[in-house]
């Protein structure tokens, strides 16, 4: 399966999908840790993908969203943003509102 299809499948099949460096319990980058901590704080279930385990995934996700960095958060198949945007949305309440609207919280 081509990496693009693999990514599309992942974000379609998981309501909340976080592409990160490392895992929520062992993040390998401060930005990835920040986003997974926000999701943990909001107590939502999410699927995390460790891009460090698959170089094709690490590059593929950047091409997929035309976004140059990791982490990347997807909710209901939509790209929400990286660390800066997710943190900003968390701080101004937009993230919680979005999750409520999608009945994920």
């Amino acid at each position, binding site marked *: 399966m081509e990496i693009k299809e693999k990514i599309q499948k992942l974000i379609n099949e998981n309501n909340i999908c976080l592409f990160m460096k490392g895992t929520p319990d062992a993040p390998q980058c401060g*930005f990835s840790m920040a986003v997974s901590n926000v999701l943990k704080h909001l107590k939502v279930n999410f699927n995390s993908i460790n891009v460090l385990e698959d170089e094709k995934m690490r590059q593929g996700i950047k091409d997929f969203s*035309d*976004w*140059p*960095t990791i982490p990347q958060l997807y909710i209901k198949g939509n*790209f929400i*943003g990286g660390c800066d*945007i997710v943190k*900003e949305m968390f701080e101004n309440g937009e993230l919680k509102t979005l999750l409520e609207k999608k009945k994920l919280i």
Partner: protein
Amino acid sequence: MALPKEEIKKLILSSIPDAVIDIKDLMGDNNHYSANIKSKMFNGLSKIDQHKLVYKALKGKMGNELHALSLNTEVK
């Protein structure tokens, strides 16, 4: 790998000429920055597209020579 502050400003201004840019070198290593950028070009764009405009201005350096740049964009 690192990118000096002035180089980042020059690149951003080349694509976003009216940008008001405030860059902080967070770790003093030319590699971990935070930047606050104001521009009329952000008007009407989503946050994602505002940030993408900045990343495009950086011509592929974001995530390569430039490891960490925390962005805060504002309309003007």
